């Protein structure tokens, strides 16, 4: 039955039809008609953030945790430009975010009107689609298509820019299903599957490199079956963490710049890499010229533009990871990799992290894990703590680790945790940040309080922009330029926001603080005062190959220059 709606009402209706129940946003002039209509739609919960960047990261976190599109809303001009970092992050990490921005009214466009920004032009390179709605007659279909585009194939963000006068126009509205998905998923070709199966059957030192695509493609079960069928060690990239249980005997660890030595060594000695849903980021490969020189590569990937982009591929298998992995399982006789495993195990070393003092990241992460029996989601920010979280938290449950991988956007964790919490209200969500990244979006504590979101915040306070300081120590002769960073009194800050705050300065306080924070029904903050100049080991220097590993700090240079 047709009815007359304003553009703004129509936008809300389409959001509901697309299954949206929560969105993250911030009002302003050009999006006011939308906000005027919003209270008529109680099924749409709106989370008022404190900065639009947080709205985009929260929508991203929601999308990653739920597998559904995350929605963020902002006004034109500064509201829209504030979304940019969050959209770039979602783009790099393939997160289906739909951003809705107000735009100045059409008669004002192109005249540098107040708060007019060409947000389409700004976001073209960091979205799957950026679209200006030029008339109300196309508004509903554009909105529906935005969701389809964000979710189809390899997911990613979409931006819909709606001029204020279009939001106020009226039109006869008939509910309709979303526009059909543009391109069907390619099906890997049979000859390539045979070729891959042959390589796998013959390989003596094969490895699986599992990436984010396993999680996005719901392929973790197929991966486990394939791995168990073949006995091949499974390496998980930063965004592949929690795609494969870490207590599984076939799990090997994380590769790349901060990967364990035995993991990178295995890559360098492998004769076959089976890469699944990962894109050979330079943080994984190091210098590609020296990457896995002895290995042929089978690349299972949904997006054909990734094939051969960074490393040459022997057999590309373009399509959904799950069906391809199960087809390979069917095509292969069961095998094992006993002598290869022996070789890898013989190259294992003791843990590198030799923290001074007893608030070692390892102890903190073990406490976070144990306090909830592992039933929690972890959202890491960017820096040293991100690597410790990746390496030391024992992930056993699918899709419980979230991090800004491709963009490496500091400030991600706190707002993204808001989105993760809203997707998973029944389990604890920890946002783990450094003292630098926390201060980039700590204003979102107010959002948590206003909206009653019991997110748990952990700050690894080392008094430095730690990861940059580490590079300065290793590669810039210890010149700590602009890396010492002052922090407020976080316990008092928590108090100012009306939430529980704890400072942990001794190892014995860790478990108590974690348990108290979890018991608290609201948001809670723990500041862990960690060793100031601890480093993340091992490390492959930027631009070096995976074989050129740093395992200790360089000797301090003579204080001459």
């Amino acid at each position, binding site marked *: 039955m047709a009815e007359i709606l304003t553009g703004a009402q129509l936008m809300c209706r389409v959001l509901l039809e697309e299954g949206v129940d929560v969105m993250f946003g911030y009002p302003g002039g050009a999006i006011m008609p939308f906000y005027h209509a919003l209270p008529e739609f109680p099924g749409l919960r709106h989370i008022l953030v404190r900065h639009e960047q947080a709205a985009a990261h929260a929508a991203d976190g929601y999308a990653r945790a739920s597998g559904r599109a995350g929605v963020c809303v902002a006004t034109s001009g500064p509201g829209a430009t504030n979304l940019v970092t969050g959209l770039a992050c979602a783009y790099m990490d393939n997160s289906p975010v739909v951003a809705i921005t107000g735009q100045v009214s059409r008669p004002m466009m192109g005249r540098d009107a107040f708060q007019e920004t060409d947000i389409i032009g700004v976001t073209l390179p960091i979205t*799957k689609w950026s679209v200006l709605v030029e008339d109300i007659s196309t508004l509903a279909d554009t909105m529906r298509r935005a969701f389809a585009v964000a979710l189809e194939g390899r997911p990613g963000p979409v931006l819909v820019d709606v001029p204020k006068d279009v939001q106020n126009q009226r039109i006869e509205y008939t509910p309709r299903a979303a526009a059909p998905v543009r391109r069907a998923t390619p099906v890997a070709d049979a000859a390539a599957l045979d070729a891959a199966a042959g390589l796998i059957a013959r390989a003596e030192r094969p490895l699986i490199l599992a990436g984010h695509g396993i999680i996005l493609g719901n392929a973790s079960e197929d991966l486990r079956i394939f791995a168990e069928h073949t006995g091949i060690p499974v390496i998980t990239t930063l965004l592949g963490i929690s795609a494969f249980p870490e207590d599984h005997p076939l799990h090997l660890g994380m590769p790349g710049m901060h990967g364990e030595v035995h993991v990178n060594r295995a890559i360098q000695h492998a004769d076959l890499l089976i890469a699944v849903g990962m894109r050979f980021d330079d943080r994984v490969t190091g210098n590609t010229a020296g990457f896995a020189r002895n290995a042929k590569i089978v690349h299972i990937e949904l997006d054909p*533009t990734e094939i051969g982009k960074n490393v040459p591929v022997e057999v590309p298998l373009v399509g959904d990871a799950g069906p391809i992995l199960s087809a390979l399982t069917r095509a292969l006789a069961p095998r094992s990799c006993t002598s290869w495993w022996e070789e890898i195990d013989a190259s294992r070393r003791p843990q590198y992290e030799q923290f001074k003092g007893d608030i070692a990241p390892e102890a903190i992460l073990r406490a976070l894990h144990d306090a909830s029996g592992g039933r929690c989601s972890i959202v890491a920010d960017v820096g040293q703590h991100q690597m410790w979280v990746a390496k030391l938290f024992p992930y056993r449950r699918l899709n419980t680790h979230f991090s800004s991988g491709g963009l490496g956007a500091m400030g991600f964790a706190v707002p993204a945790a808001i989105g993760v919490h809203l997707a998973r209200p029944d389990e604890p969500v920890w946002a783990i940040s450094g003292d630098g990244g926390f201060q980039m979006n700590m204003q979102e504590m107010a959002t948590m309080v206003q909206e009653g979101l019991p997110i748990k915040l952990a700050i690894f306070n080392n008094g430095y922009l730690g990861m940059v300081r580490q590079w300065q120590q290793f590669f810039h002769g210890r010149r700590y330029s602009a890396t010492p960073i002052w922090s407020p009194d976080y316990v008092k800050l928590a108090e100012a926001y009306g939430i529980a705050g704890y400072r942990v300065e001794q190892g014995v306080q860790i478990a108590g603080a974690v348990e108290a924070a979890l018991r608290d029904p609201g948001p809670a903050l723990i500041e862990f005062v960690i060793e100031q100049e601890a480093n993340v080991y091992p490390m492959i220097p930027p631009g070096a190959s995976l074989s050129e590993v740093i395992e200790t700090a360089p000797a301090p240079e003579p204080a001459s220059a």
Partner: protein
Amino acid sequence: MSHLHCITVVLDDKLVTLNAAVGLLRRRNLPVRSVTFGPHVAEGRSRLFAMIEADEGAAQRVALLFEKLIGVDEARVVPAADTVARELALIRIRAQAESYGELLDVLGLYHANVLEEGPDGLVVELTGPDTFVLSCLRAVERFGIVDVARSGAVAIERPAESPRAPTSTEASVP
């Protein structure tokens, strides 16, 4: 092996799609020799021609990247050697009574048509491969060129097994 490829892209006629397509070429940091854009035969569609210097795999990847853009219908890669490429040039030349006949002789060599004639000059039209156009421009330079409008190259795939490579016009550049 890196060599010249012609990528032809059929896209809708919205400027934002052109913007996205050109942005893609820029962002992927590709050695682009030329980009030409014009209408396509299908209603509401445009066609973009990009000449890029790349190996086969990279060129194919660019085409796939184009096809990921919303608004792009298809993108095809053809090695430049397998295409016939032409551009149009409009040239305005100052008229000089004393050398007029000589000018017409030169233009005749290039099969250039005189489109407009007036007391202060003439406008001629010329088509050919870019080398041919450049050669003609050099040849008429001494008569006094007022302005030149070049279309950039459009290209189309040769029929299969065509023996004409390079074309006779290319071979006959004076």
